[in-house]
Structure formats: structure tokens, C-alpha cells
């Protein structure tokens, strides 16, 4: 008997999906602030979703475990915050500036770190991250040191006929939702492009990818730059939301959160970061509302993470995708037999 693999499983490019994915994402983004008790929470989820989306490109799709992504998140925060204070609070200037700063920093850090592999790569990213942390810590006149930057001014954002009053969490959420929609659709496209498949080839077997003729260093560097730029954008957006830049945004613990969210949602899945951020921020919110816990929520996050690593190594969305694939296999197998 011949084993047939249903072709849609391999390509997953049915015409319906071109509509279903954006529609489902839109529905999710519209419902999120309605279901949640307040908009700032929904906005925080999207900030972390974008941070982890950038992180996932590097970790989930290229297989590079960076422990220094707080550097880019923080860099974006400080760029947006400092520009808003000293030059202009216009998001149309500060957001691209933060993305640019993240991309340039990503190119420099990536260039050095990618010369090493495995654990050494992780430790180098960590070292660069902490380097930036201590620079910000010492350079009080510019960064405010331990205190961070408080009271970041915001300006109304005018895009065509729409005005976003960024003083309100509600409008920040709308801005974030639009950017999240664009970012996820863009990443979806990117991942199915030759560039995206080449990255996944590197993740599966770098030597083989190299043998086939890919310039793996260049590809990894591009992945690093894109990932850093996205993390930096998330950092800037966090400032529009909080009106504050904290020194902690640069600490390696923040890098750890990106790793946590990505794994929790499902590394190497497109929607993993969104699901992970929802679970992470939601859990944090629920836990810190319990009087006995409040600030001790990371304890339970850590416990959950241990369980996750032991029992659900593929994360929430990764496990869901696997179940779905198995189900489709069964359905199509049953169909074959019946027909």
C-alpha cells in the first residue's frame, strides 16, 4: 500500500487560509481589550508579543538562543524616551528612530556574537546585554541611572484622517493593534519566503545548509538584525504605553522574559509569541491581584515554566498545532479508507 501525504499538510497554502488568518487575527485584536478588564493590560500583552515575535525569529526559527535581547528592547525604550524628551515626541519620528537604533545595534552585536556558536553565542549576547545595562547604569546624566526616565512626554499622532491621543491607553492599544497586525502578517510572509525557509534550514542543520550553498553567516546576521529591530520597536512602544523608561528594561532578566514567553507560547510557531504573551501577562496580572502573592508572581511563573519544559516542551500553541496536525492526518486517513 502506498503512503500518501496530504499535500495541504506540507504546503499549508489553501486559498482559504489567506483570508482566515488575517480575519482571525483581527477578531482577536478587536476582542482582546473588550474581554480583558482594562486596555493597558491588552496593550502590555501586545508589547510583549511584539518583543517575542522578534525574539522568536532568532530563537524559534533560526535556532539561536540569545540571552541579550533586553539590550535591544531597552535600547528602543531609551531611544524613544530620550528623543521624546530632547527633540520630538512625534511617534512618526521616535518609532523609526528606535527601530533604526535596534537594527544598527543588532548588526554590530550580531557581527561579533555570530562568530561563535552554541553556548558561547548565548554567553556573548548576555555579555553585550549586560555591557549596555551597566553603561546605562553609570551614565546618569543621560539615562537617569537607577531611576530611569520618568514622565516621558507624548504627542498626538496624526496619520491621515486618524488621530491617536497617546495619553490614553485605549489609543495606545489601537496603535499597537495595528502594528501587531502588520508585524504578524509581515512575519508570516517572511517565514514562507526563501529567506525564511533558509533560516529554518539553518536551525535544522547548519552544516547541511552551508553545504547546500547558503551563506549562513549572512543569513543569521540578517535574522539577528531583524529580530533586534523588532525588539527595539517593542521597547519604544512600551514607552508610549508606560510614559516611563526603566533601567530594568535592559537587565538580563528582561531577556529571560522574552525566552519564557516564546517557549510558553511555542518556539518556532508564528502565533506562539502572541499566545505566550497573553498567558504570561495574563498570569502575571491574575497572580499579582491575589493579596498573598502580589510581587511574588515570578515564583509561580518559574514553577509553570518548569512544568512547561517538562510536560509541554512545544508550548501552548506548538502543542495545539501538533494536535491539529494529528487530527487532520486522522481525518484524511479515514477519508482515504472510506473512499
Amino acid at each position, binding site marked *: 500500500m502506498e503512503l500518501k501525504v496530504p499535500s495541504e499538510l506540507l504546503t499549508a497554502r489553501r486559498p482559504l487560509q489567506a483570508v482566515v488568518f488575517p480575519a482571525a487575527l483581527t477578531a482577536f485584536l478587536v476582542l482582546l481589550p473588550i474581554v480583558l478588564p482594562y486596555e493597558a493590560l491588552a496593550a502590555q500583552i501586545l508589547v510583549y508579543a511584539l518583543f517575542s515575535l522578534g525574539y522568536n525569529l532568532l530563537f524559534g526559527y533560526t535556532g539561536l538562543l540569545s540571552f541579550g535581547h533586553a539590550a535591544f528592547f531597552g535600547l528602543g525604550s531609551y531611544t524613544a524616551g530620550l528623543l521624546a524628551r530632547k527633540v520630538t515626541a512625534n511617534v512618526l519620528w521616535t518609532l523609526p528612530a528606535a527601530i533604526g537604533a535596534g537594527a544598527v545595534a543588532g548588526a554590530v552585536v550580531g557581527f561579533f556574537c555570530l562568530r561563535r556558536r552554541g553556548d558561547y553565542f548565548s554567553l556573548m549576547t548576555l555579555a553585550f546585554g549586560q555591557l549596555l545595562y551597566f553603561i546605562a547604569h553609570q551614565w546618569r546624566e543621560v539615562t537617569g541611572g537607577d531611576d530611569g526616565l520618568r514622565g516621558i512626554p507624548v504627542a498626538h499622532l496624526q496619520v491621515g484622517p486618524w488621530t491617536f491621543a497617546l495619553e490614553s491607553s485605549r489609543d495606545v492599544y489601537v496603535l499597537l493593534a495595528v502594528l501587531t497586525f502588520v508585524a504578524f502578517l509581515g512575519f508570516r510572509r517572511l517565514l514562507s519566503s526563501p529567506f525564511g525557509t533558509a533560516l529554518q534550514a539553518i536551525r535544522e542543520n547548519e552544516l547541511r545548509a552551508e553545504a547546500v550553498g547558503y551563506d549562513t553567516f549572512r543569513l543569521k546576521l540578517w535574522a539577528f538584525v531583524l529580530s533586534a529591530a523588532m525588539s527595539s520597536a517593542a521597547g519604544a512602544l512600551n514607552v508610549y504605553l508606560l510614559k516611563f523608561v526603566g533601567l530594568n528594561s535592559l537587565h538580563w532578566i528582561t531577556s529571560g522574559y522574552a525566552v519564557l514567553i516564546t517557549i510558553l507560547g511555542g518556539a518556532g510557531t508564528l502565533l506562539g509569541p502572541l499566545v505566550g504573551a497573553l498567558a504570561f501577562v495574563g498570569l502575571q496580572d491574575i497572580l499579582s491581584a491575589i493579596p498573598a502573592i502580589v510581587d511574588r508572581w515570578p515564583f509561580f511563573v*518559574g514553577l509553570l515554566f*518548569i512544568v512547561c519544559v*517538562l510536560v509541554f*516542551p512545544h508550548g501552548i500553541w506548538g502543542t495545539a498545532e501538533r494536535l491539529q496536525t494529528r487530527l487532520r492526518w486522522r481525518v484524511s486517513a479515514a477519508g482515504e479508507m472510506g473512499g
Partner: protein
Amino acid sequence: MSAQALLLQLVTGVVVGAIWVIVAIGLSLIFGILRIVNFAHGAFYMLGAYLAAFAVGWTGHFWIALLVAPLSMAAFGVLVERGLIGRLYGRGLVYSVLATYAVSLVVIEGVKILWGTVGPQFRVPAELAGMVNLGFSLFPKYRLFVLLATALTVLGVWWWLHRTPMGLFVRAASQDPLMTQALGVDIARVLAGAFGAGVALAGLGGALAGPLRGVFPEMGLDILVESFVVVVIGGMGSLLGAVVAGLLVGVVQSFTFLWAPVFANVVLFLLMIATLLVRPQGLFGTE
């Protein structure tokens, strides 16, 4: 600047480096055998300091604390390895590393839940308080003791690795775990033992550092990254490398504090990045 001041700065740097040496040896040991970058090492260091402080509080004897902290941390380490990290072998190193990160969160926050955000008092023991005359300057007695304790610890670890059967198995496992197992060594026990020993060293480092730097839940966050730096500079898995790099980095940082305090925290990372670029395997690493 006078020769005395320079000498004093040198000795101070060596003492700072000594704590890094102990913590980094543990990290290096774990990496050498289990191939895991242990992100919980800082949390274990902190827990060791807490246990030592409590032991002093209950018994009144610093010496007992210096035994209790590493021994109970060794037991705790074996527990963590058997219960969690050991279950992740063969799943890719990423998951083991992430598991240690999660353990770090749980331990730090667990300590805060149990004992609050302010740590216990941990004073320099009476018999080690005061100063000694080094000839060129007065120097705190306790700091000299830390140096001595570090030297003894390094010798002890060397002896354990090179003169005991368990040490032989540990070294064999770091060379070729499969062959070691084929020769009849219970590799699971060796891995657990090596992890326990590494964690014990973290605990001892914390116990020694406690009276110098104070005991608080976050005390391990910085030293974790600093000992990563030391291990990378010295060469992952190399005992001699951790010793030399620890002392070297301590001295370099001490002089940076003197001449360019702004760079004192940054110089470590610059050294590490430079090492990785020029001699990626570290000073004494092989590969």
C-alpha cells in the same frame, strides 16, 4: 601613586577575584560534565549565603556554617538534577538551560516568600574581625581568610578530581560519557554528583561572600553574570582557567575602580568579548 596604595589595591582585587574563583569553578565543573550553562548558579550562591547566615544564628559558630552551607547545597543540587535537569537530557541543551533559568526564578522568589525581601544579618565572625598588618598596609583579617579558604577549596577540588575514584569518573565523563558508561560507571550518579559539587561550590562562595557584601535575595544576579565572564575567559571546563581568570579579572577590575571608576563594571565584559574574539576557547580551554 605610592607603591603601598598599589599593593593594597592589588590584594583587594585578588580577594574580590577569590570569590569569583570559587563560584566560577562550580559553574565550570557543571559545564564541563553536563554541558549546561547553569543560570541558577547565582540563586544557589544566594541560598548558600542564607543557609550560612541562619546556621551562624542558630549555632553561633561560623565554622559550622561554612560546612552546613555547601553540604546542604550539594544535597539540594543533587535533588534539582535528579528531579528536573536529569529528565531533560537528550532533549536539546536549550531546555536544560531554560530549566535552570526557571529554577533561578523559583529559588529567588521562594526565598522572598519564606524570609522577606530583606536578608538576615551576617556579621564577620569575632575571631576573624579586625585588621592584620601586611607590612605595607593594614588589611581586614576576614578578607585574608577568604583568600586562604579559596586556596584550600581549589586544592580540595583538585584533589577530588585527581585523587579520588569519583573524581576519576567525573573527568572520564567529561571526556567521553558514552565510553565511561560502557566501562561500567553509573553515569547518572556521576552527573548528579558533579552537579551537586558545582552547586556546593556556589553555596560556599555565597557563605564566604555573605559577611563582605551582605545577604539579600538578589545578591546572586550580578555574580552569576560575572562568573560566566570568568569561566569564558578562563576556558569552559578548566579548573586552572577559572582560578587564573578569576584572580586576573578581580585585579583588573580593582585597578579600573582606582583609575577609571566609570568603567569598573564594564571592563569585565570588554575583557570577555576580547577573549572570545582573540582566543575563543579561553585562556586554558581546549577545543
